[in-house]
């Protein structure tokens, strides 16, 4: 199991931070024959149309592969629906458990999880195939802790007098802290 991508969105859903953490040789999009999706052929011997590669300028602005961005979009939609229903909160929960929304949607083998706070929403994409309920529960609580820490780093980045609110997160400190959080999280899975 590993965290493939993390996104921070504002209350209105505008993106503040998008980042993917997968290795380049991720086996995410292999088709049935075990060949890579780019340029290979699928079961019906048709040429697969690869997903458009991002230009490097796009990559600089939002360092997250388009594939993950698509899944994040659908997860964001689902999160909106869940929040509108307003029945996701576990009764009697407090602190970070009160912010935890949980499983949002599934796409390929990416599972999306949400976490909301008063001013931001966090969506994480986990790439795994754990079926065991116990392990899932443990992994979910670890993820909740990770998101709570990421929120703490975000709040600290807001305390920078040169940062502007509601705009893209550009703090290097936030970036390096969140990356080390994700590395720790991924380290447990191996």
């Amino acid at each position: 199991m590993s965290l493939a991508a993390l996104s921070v969105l504002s209350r209105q859903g505008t993106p503040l931070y998008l980042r993917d953490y997968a290795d380049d040789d991720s086996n995410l999009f292999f088709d049935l024959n075990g060949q890579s999706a780019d340029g290979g052929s699928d079961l019906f011997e048709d040429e697969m149309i690869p997903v458009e590669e991002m230009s490097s300028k796009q990559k600089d602005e939002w360092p997250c592969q388009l594939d993950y961005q698509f899944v994040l979009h659908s997860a964001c939609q689902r999160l909106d629906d869940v929040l509108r229903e307003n029945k996701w909160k576990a009764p009697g929960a407090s602190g970070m458990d009160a912010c935890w929304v949980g499983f949002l949607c599934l796409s390929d083998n990416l599972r999306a999880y949400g976490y909301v706070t008063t001013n931001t929403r966090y969506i994480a994409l986990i790439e795994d195939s754990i079926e065991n309920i116990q392990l899932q529960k443990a992994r979910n609580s670890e993820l909740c802790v990770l998101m709570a820490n990421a929120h703490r780093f975000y709040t600290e980045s807001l305390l920078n007098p040169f940062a502007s609110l509601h705009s893209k997160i550009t703090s290097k400190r936030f970036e390096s802290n969140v990356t080390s959080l994700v590395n720790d999280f991924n380290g447990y899975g191996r």
Partner: protein
Amino acid sequence: MSSKSQAVQAGQTLWAKMPKANAELFALTYGSLVTELVRDYEDPIEVNAQLDRIGHSIGVRCVDEFLSKADVAGMGSATRCSNLRDTAEVLAKVGFKMFLGTGAEAGGFSQDQRSFSIYLQDNPLSTFVELPQHGDDHQSGGDDLRKLKYSNLYCGVIRGALEQVNLKVECSIVRDTLKGDEVNEIRVELKEVLADGAGDDYKDE
């Protein structure tokens, strides 16, 4: 040097007696002051000068408080500073400790004993601060905030305080943790020792 340990002791005693403020509130207030100045003046050099002026008026008032409280801590007139070295030690160990709570080191004394450096390990004014990267087009006028000396207030405070005790100095920040250095360094140079006097207007004919 016994005077150094005396100074350290005095600094800690004085810090314990001073009323305290919330460190985050302090840092945020200073941060908003600096960003407001940047918005008003736009030129980082001008902002540095303004911070120096503000620091100067703070220093002029701080030194009176320092001297009045120094007796309590055993740093009274008996332990007067005889040379610039003593002044530097007192400034770093007692002055900075008393008002900011952080210890500072005095060092880097020049050959002619007319300049020294104050080293600050952690700067309470710049907690949570990150200078925006250069080349950021959203900045007004594209001004280069690398030239901004965020902690220039300290230079003004030192200048103002020492002026009241007849030492005319020039201070500048030479190393800044916000720019990537490991320690904050303020260079203080003695320009002249002023003579006590009532000024030209009051001189006898």
